[in-house]
């Protein structure tokens, strides 16, 4: 009898320990929608798993929410694109170090007819100014994401009179702050025949990855203000002792290693390279 009891207890202990063992090599990453929507993570994470045996669980949301996840200890690592806020995140002790990983670029997409005539604008601020002057429909993410922050910076660079939130008045009937993701914003712009600031990856995915073709075209691109750098930051274990810092740091180190950078450079979306390695 005693033997049976001890076997049962032993088996129960082994069973209880199994999920814990399986869980050991899993980290949670909060990231921006663009890394996931562009398909990069589906390409990158299996390679990382092959090299290190670490599984990464991805939660994709706006950069603001992703950083908030890091601050609250709901993620082990964040992978986002808003340098100013990322540096603040590290300065406030929530993250240990910001690693430069890669960059891609923002583009202004809109209807082919280009009603505001921004195609030949000398710079992106001028392009935004022309959109505002023409009161052409403009769709703003309005969700505190990295793309939304960049849009606010562009508006600020125009020198137009802006509201507290550093974007044009919302009620004018041309500026739509929709508080949704990049994909929804692109669909919205398509419906309203308006302009939208987009990351190239999501745009390509929506332009060529859909069964139904899509009217939006790239109307303005290639300005320093439109460069979009991504950084990865492991969450500081001093703030949140439960985070899996070692595994998270392994992930960050791998991304900036020669191998990780090569994987990023190899990734193509609809035959176009999308992210450019940028480790320093």
């Amino acid at each position: 009898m005693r033997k049976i009891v001890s076997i049962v207890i032993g088996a129960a202990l082994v069973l209880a320990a199994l999920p814990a063992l399986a869980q050991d090599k899993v980290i949670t990453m909060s990231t921006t929608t663009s890394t996931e929507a562009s398909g990069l993570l589906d390409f990158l994470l299996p390679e990382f798993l092959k090299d290190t045996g670490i599984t990464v669980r991805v939660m994709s949301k706006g950069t603001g929410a992703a950083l908030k996840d890091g601050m609250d200890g709901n993620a082990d690592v964040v992978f986002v694109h808003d340098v100013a806020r990322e540096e603040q995140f590290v300065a406030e002790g929530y993250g240990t170090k910001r690693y430069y990983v890669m960059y891609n670029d923002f583009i202004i997409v809109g209807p082919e007819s280009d009603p505001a005539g921004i195609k030949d604008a000398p710079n992106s601020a001028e392009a935004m100014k022309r959109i505002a002057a023409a009161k052409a429909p403009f769709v703003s993410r309005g969700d505190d994401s990295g793309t939304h922050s960049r849009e606010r910076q562009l508006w600020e660079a125009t020198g137009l009179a802006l509201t507290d939130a550093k974007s044009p008045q919302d009620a004018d009937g041309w500026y739509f702050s929709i508080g949704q993701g990049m994909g929804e914003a692109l669909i919205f712009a398509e419906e309203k025949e308006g302009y939208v600031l987009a990351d190239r990856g999501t745009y390509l995915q929506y332009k060529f990855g859909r069964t139904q073709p899509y009217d939006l075209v790239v109307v303005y691109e290639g300005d320093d203000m439109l460069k979009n750098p991504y950084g990865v930051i492991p969450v500081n274990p001093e703030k949140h002792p439960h985070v899996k810092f070692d595994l998270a740091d392994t992930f960050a180190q791998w991304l900036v290693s020669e191998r990780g950078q090569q994987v990023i450079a190899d990734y193509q979306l609809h035959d176009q390279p999308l992210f450019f390695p940028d480790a320093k």
Partner: protein
Amino acid sequence: MDFLTQSIIEAFRMIWSLDPEMYFIVYVSLYVSFFSTIIASILGVPLGFLIAVKQFRGKRAVITILNTMLALPTVVIGLLVYAFLSRRGMLGHLGLLYTPKAIIIGQVILILPWVATFTMAAVSRIDERYRRTALTLGANALQAALAVAREARFGILAAIIAAFGRVIAEIGIAMMLGGNIKGFTRTMTTAMALEHNKGEFVLAVALGIVLLAVSLIMNVALQLVQGKYGDNR
């Protein structure tokens, strides 16, 4: 825990300070819910009434369809109406997509079966002899019908209040057809989803409190109506 209490305290401060952005969101929510309930009632109450009192071929099929439509998910309605209102859709030229009107259209489709079936149930409960008595007392068909409707009024009112409660808490249609435009189609539920996405909680909690308060008022009203209804029997 600290985090939650702090959010709640901040939320009450926001409600108390009459924050204009928050109150506009509440206004949009009440506006679309009010009009969708009114329209659904104008269509749904007579529909439910007719199904209850008339005998016709296929009555069972109609009832089955209505009951099935009770379970229609909001995203399905959102998709369907979107396909019609999209620029490439049949009604695209009307420019209704991403306006409060689009939300109202979707929400009417959502609650019309509710109002109709609950009206039907309320009217069916009135004894058929009631109508016949009215007719023998010299009422014409319309007057007899009105007499039955009068008798079922509390049940019908309860159906309408329940429908309002359903639309004000609804998010799928408001997001897909309204588009969550700040200062135009942003409702309480879509604003809460956005604030959560942004990782900000104060406005979301404040709106949650207002939404619960509205639901509470609706349910108290429902209780009062049902209480009266019970007394009447």
